[in-house]
């Protein structure tokens, strides 16, 4: 039906119009078509629509998760700031709370959702019977989080499958999960390893060393190396994942980032006077730690990665890889069920039939039925 053909007289790449001299002194005007105006059109459309970003923070309480969020977005975006502190008691249920804000910068509007997972690991404070407890507690702690992540995928999938669907499907999928590692200085706890392993399979995970001002630079480097080794040994793929590098240029940039992971960060929302400037920092008796000074901590790298350079890439990987994986898994799970019910060979079913069949099974449409747990989740 069609073939890509390079036409005879190609417009050579140039900015603006291209002029040339023809014999005889007349100026040849290869006037420019204007295809590159589409970039401007896209930009306009994007500004009008606004952006969405959903970040989840996972880690023990007291590691400075909320503070870091506030520092990243230079405003009070965390749950604590909105609701106020005072939740010191150990909660009986594990509550996953999400807070959304609309923020704007230079005409660019963004809907930022921060999902907090408090109370994680509080119960674990005795290293002796750690291995037993961690296996038990893992299930209690990570299951709701995994469920939450999968529920967001499910919600998106249901909306996508609808016949009358919205113009722009609201995207509540978790784009990035920041995992806080306590600054022990030794190595990763089994709990962390297990948790990161499972998370990295469904979401982009960015590990950070919290409260890094308790480590000296040498301890920091040693700790990082140990962590990287352990991640590699356990096959945990953190963002930026090696297999999603698009070209050589990408790989180069990402290699540099991979060498720095995990970022050692310090968060603060207090400003102090340093060298005549007002900077965010932590003031101690022995000095002031500047948050945005790369000699002090790696907060700036984290911020640049997450926000200034790789935000779009993070969202793309979530939607085209993690979400698609979830979708394939989900549709295949129901595939067998529907096929056996109707005697139709499995590969003849479309995605639509599979999902709507599944929808009919549930009695209460408001409670989405859970897919049977795959081997990974149990």
């Amino acid at each position: 039906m069609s073939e890509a053909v390079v036409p005879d007289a190609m417009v050579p790449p140039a900015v603006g119009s291209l002029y040339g001299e023809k014999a005889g002194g007349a100026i040849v005007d290869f006037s420019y078509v204007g295809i590159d105006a589409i970039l401007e059109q896209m930009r306009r459309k994007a500004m009008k629509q606004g952006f969405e970003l959903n970040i989840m923070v996972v880690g023990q309480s007291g590691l400075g998760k909320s503070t870091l969020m506030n520092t990243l977005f230079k405003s009070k975006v965390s749950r604590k700031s909105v609701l106020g502190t005072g939740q010191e008691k150990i909660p009986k249920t594990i509550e996953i709370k999400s807070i959304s804000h609309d923020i704007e910068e230079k005409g660019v509007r963004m809907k930022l959702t921060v999902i907090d997972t408090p109370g994680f690991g509080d119960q674990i404070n005795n290293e002796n019977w750690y291995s037993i407890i961690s296996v038990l507690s893992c299930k209690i702690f990570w299951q709701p989080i995994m469920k939450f992540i999968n529920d967001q995928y499910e919600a998106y999938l249901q909306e996508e499958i609808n016949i009358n669907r919205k113009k722009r499907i609201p995207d509540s999928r978790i784009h990035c999960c920041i995992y806080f590692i306590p600054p022990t200085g030794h190595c990763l706890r089994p709990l962390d390893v297990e948790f990161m392993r499972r998370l990295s399979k469904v979401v982009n995970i960015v590990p950070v060393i919290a409260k890094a001002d308790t480590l000296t630079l040498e301890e920091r480097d040693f700790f990082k190396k140990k962590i990287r080794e352990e991640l590699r040994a356990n096959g945990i793929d953190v963002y930026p994942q090696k297999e999603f590098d698009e070209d050589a240029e990408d790989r180069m940039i990402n290699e540099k980032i991979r060498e720095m992971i995990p970022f050692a960060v310090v968060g603060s929302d207090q400003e102090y006077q340093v060298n005549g400037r007002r900077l965010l920092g932590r003031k101690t008796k022995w000095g002031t730690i500047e948050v945005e000074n790369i000699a002090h901590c790696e907060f700036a790298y984290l911020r640049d990665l997450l926000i200034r350079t790789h935000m779009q890439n993070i969202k793309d990987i979530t939607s085209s890889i993690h979400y698609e994986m979830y979708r394939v898994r989900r549709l295949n799970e129901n595939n067998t069920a529907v096929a056996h019910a109707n005697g139709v060979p499995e590969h003849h079913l479309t995605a639509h039939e599979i999902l709507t069949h599944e929808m009919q099974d549930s009695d209460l449409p408001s409670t989405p039925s859970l897919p049977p747990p795959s081997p990974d989740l149990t």
Partner: protein
Amino acid sequence: MVRSEQASFEYNSGGGFVLRLTALTMASTEIARQAGEGVRAVPLAGHVGFDSMPDQLVNKSVNRGFCFNILCVGETGLGKSTLMDTLFNTKFEGEPTQHNQPGVTLKSNTYELQESNVRLKLTVVNTVGFGDQINKEDSYKSIVEFIDAQFEAYLQEELKIKRTLHSYHDTRIHACLYFIAPTGHSLKSLDLVTMKKLDSKVNIIPIVAKSDAIAKSELAKFKIKITSELVSNGVQIYQFPTDDESVAEINSTMNSHLPFAVVGSTEEVKIGNKMVKARQYPWGTVQVENENHCDFVKLREMLIRVNMEDLREQTHTRHYELYRRCKLEEMGFKDTDPDSKPFSLQETYEAKRNEFMGELQKKEEEMRQMFVQRVKEKEAELKEAEKELHEKFDRLKKLHQDEKKKLEDKKKTLDDEVNTFKQKKTAAELLQNQAQQAGGSTTLKRDKERK
């Protein structure tokens, strides 16, 4: 203006799951700016840096490349290919088509264009033989089928289990340029019927082709006549969007200039000291890019430089969604709303399936019957043939026997004759012998007598 809200999900150790949405629903489309709703504004205390998001998005798109598909509908000889060449400043393929096509076919060609860092995969689809037939009733059908086929291909990809939407080459038609012949009177019925059928499937931009054939005064009247006819027949042509302030003004002015009266030319003529694209006549030169001469510049401005992205978006969010909805409803799928009982889908599916199986079975039965009948017929035929053969055999046998009998009779007769002859012969020999003996003695007697 900001809206803060929260949702909480609870997991009870008892294993149950309850979703509690404690706040207002989220705005899903444009975030409306509403004053005084009692929500807290969240000011940023410094430069965060997400204002680079549009740049990141644009960079990603540049890496991926763009695609744009134009459909040119119009009678043969209205200058469709020339206009495409002029619009995109390149010589696309092909010789002009013949006028003797039996039906309307669509020919599509894809080209890779590049300008500065933007790569565009442009597909130009031409209608071949449109308006050439004597009976033009069904001319529009192949066009509609083609457009639907592109939607169908995208829908299939979207419904696949393992899909690759981000690298899918989108072939859906983003813009349809409808070429109107420059008669100066009104729209032909073929044009009206075709545009009516296409307006819900594709963005239609009507243009008056070869407009250097019409004088300026007549052109204004012609345009008014066309627009009024389109309106009175309820044809919805594409309106350039006026909701974005930066382009609202220019778009609304252009909307009033529709349909564009264009002239296409790839030949260059020297005017002053510049070479411009123009058509040269003995009485003057029509410059393509002169706004006083024709609306080509306006068309290029609107189609490419200002609204290309909007055309693509409209195709995806309006026309494709409409197609998808109709197609899925046709297949029998319905959304369940939370109040009604979820009866329809499984049952509809089952019912349809049973119906289908029933039909299949019926067809099978029919075929079997036909087969049996044919066999019977053949059998009868063969039997007939066999009978005939038997008869023939009998006849021949009888003939043979008759012949044999005749021969035997003849033989008998012959034998009898031979016997008779033999008898006669022996009798005759006997007689002769006797006669000889007697004659011998007589001869002796005779001899004695002689002596």
